[in-house]
């Protein structure tokens, strides 16, 4: 036990003496939290909207005005021809083009039916989908108003019954994107910093030759590893704390659930990440190699964690793979506990799986660390 304390003491001294590393450990992640939480949003706003009005009537102008009034669309140009509109879309100057046919108003009144042409730039498929929904909403709304205008008094009886849905968004009533992203980004920074630091730490001792000096001492493998990893565990918990404070102060993210549960889960989770870091450093000879491998896994883990894209929409094989992704569980737990106030029992499956990962990864790490080669 005393031996472990000597190692911990040494590690902390080295970490806090490294003036280059300190800002990377504490300042960068927080910048990341502040910037990413604001920037990584799927809300589609400021859509560049153009239209071709072949009708030039009060009805067509009312329709365009609807788009103009929407906060999602920036009405750009009235294109005189289809050709100009498509070349403009090619240049990326416009995202959505609405084409109003000739005799739009006349046909609507006569036939009570008409169609509109909508062209959407779908290079970003997700954004195109959202834009389509917005356009449909606006046209529907326009439709409703129009119906009332066009209806004759005698038609009252045959007016179709319309069903309106009133959605209630639970756990994030205002669909505030930050509320959803902040817990996720917090996960990301705790993971990245602890993985990179632990992955590079032992490799660094290999590089400078001090690991060999350690290996000729009678220190036990477990003593060395615990002493080495404990400081990074503390740093991980520290980062979570700072991150939570920022989430509350800057983003006012609701913290419905138990902080104790959040810390309990995180403390197990960090063990998994440290185990992975150590495992990586056992199989690499330089910090560069360790960095590359750590980066490779982080990218895969993050993209498959449900942080940015919902796991439900992944192909089935990918969904099975995510079962082995520790970040997925951390994201789930953080969102569940912070936003929904889930209890210990609710997140028990995640806790058990994470604990299992921690056990396996650290087992592999201790096993693969060889004092004698």
């Amino acid at each position, binding site marked *: 036990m005393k031996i472990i304390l000597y190692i911990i003491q040494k590690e902390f001294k080295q970490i806090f*003496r490294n003036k280059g590393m300190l800002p990377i450990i504490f300042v960068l992640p927080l910048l990341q939290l502040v910037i990413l939480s604001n920037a990584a949003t799927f809300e589609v706003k400021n859509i560049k909207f153009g239209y071709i009005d072949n009708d030039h009537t009060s009805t067509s102008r009312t329709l365009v005005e609807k788009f103009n009034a929407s906060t999602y669309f920036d009405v750009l140009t009235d294109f005189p021809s289809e050709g100009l509109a498509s070349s403009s879309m090619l240049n990326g100057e416009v995202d959505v083009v609405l084409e109003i046919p000739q005799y739009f108003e006349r046909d609507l009144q006569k036939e009570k039916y008409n169609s509109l042409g909508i062209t959407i730039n779908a290079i970003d498929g997700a954004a195109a989908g959202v834009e389509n929904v917005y356009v449909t909403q606006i046209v529907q709304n326009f439709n409703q108003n129009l119906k009332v205008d066009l209806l004759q008094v005698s038609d009252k009886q045959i007016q179709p019954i319309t069903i309106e849905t009133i959605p209630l968004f639970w756990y994030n009533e205002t669909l505030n994107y930050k509320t959803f992203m902040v817990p996720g980004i917090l996960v990301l920074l705790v993971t990245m910093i602890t993985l990179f630091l632990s992955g590079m730490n032992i490799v660094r001792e290999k590089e*400078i030759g001090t690991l060999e000096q350690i290996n000729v001492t009678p220190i036990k493998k477990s003593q060395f590893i615990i002493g080495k990893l404990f400081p990074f565990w503390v740093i991980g918990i520290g980062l979570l704390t700072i991150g939570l404070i920022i989430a509350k102060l800057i983003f006012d993210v609701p913290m419905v659930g138990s902080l104790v549960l959040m810390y309990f889960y995180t403390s197990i989770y960090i063990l998994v990440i440290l185990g992975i870091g150590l495992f990586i450093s056992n199989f690499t000879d330089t910090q560069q190699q360790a960095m590359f491998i750590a980066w490779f896994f982080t990218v895969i883990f993050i993209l498959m964690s449900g942080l940015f894209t919902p796991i439900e929409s992944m192909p089935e094989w990918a969904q099975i793979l995510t079962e082995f992704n520790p970040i997925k569980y951390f994201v789930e737990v953080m969102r569940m506990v912070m936003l929904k106030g889930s209890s210990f029992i609710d997140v028990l499956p995640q806790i058990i799986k994470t604990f299992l990962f921690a056990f396996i990864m650290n087992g592999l790490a201790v096993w693969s660390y060889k004092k004698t080669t």
Partner: protein
Amino acid sequence: MNHNKVIQVEGLTKMFGDFTAVNAITFDIEKGEIFGFLGANGAGKTTAMKMLIGISNPTSGKANVAGFNVFTNAEDIKKNIGYMSQKFALYDDLTVKENITFFGGIYGLSIKRIKEKSEILIQELGLEKVANTLVGSLPLGWKQKLSFSVSLIHDPKIVFLDEPTGGVDPITRRQFWEMIYKAANQGTTVFVTTHYMDEAEYCDRVSIMVNGKIEALDTPKKLKEKFKAANMNDVFLKLARG
């Protein structure tokens, strides 16, 4: 087993794939002896030494160090030996005192003992003024002397020194050898590799390795007689050139 023999090696071999780095070397070293382990670069000295200090598994052969088998009791050996590698292996970002405390600590010395040891050590090395200075900013010669002292912190039976005086000025080299003699006089066995042939003359016995094999092993005096050479330098050249 002869208790005066602190190192007994018989047919010790290390292979890396098809390449035989150390080819069936055999020798004994007695307690308190200064044993010079010579050889050209790449002759297999460091590999042989790594097997003896328990950080490299031998392919075959027998070896006992400080009474323990290198195959089965490597960790017991580690309690009884000190090691100073050819690469400076103290922490540059810790102070002199902190390095001493750390290594004393992981060898399991008591806090009181560590305190005593660091005081003696710092005084002997004349490092009082820089005791709280980061080791990284010290001159190489000081670092090497500190490194040697730290390798002796737990009073090991044997100390292994891998090219301890590489890149060090002649005055510091002289001081270094005075430290080696002092340790040997106190009963510590010294196993040292070097490329300086004048240093080889200071050893009680010397072995010369060529291509993984020990080609000569005796006192410097007898080796010079045997190879009809004026000094160890000539002995080495005759052997190493083959």
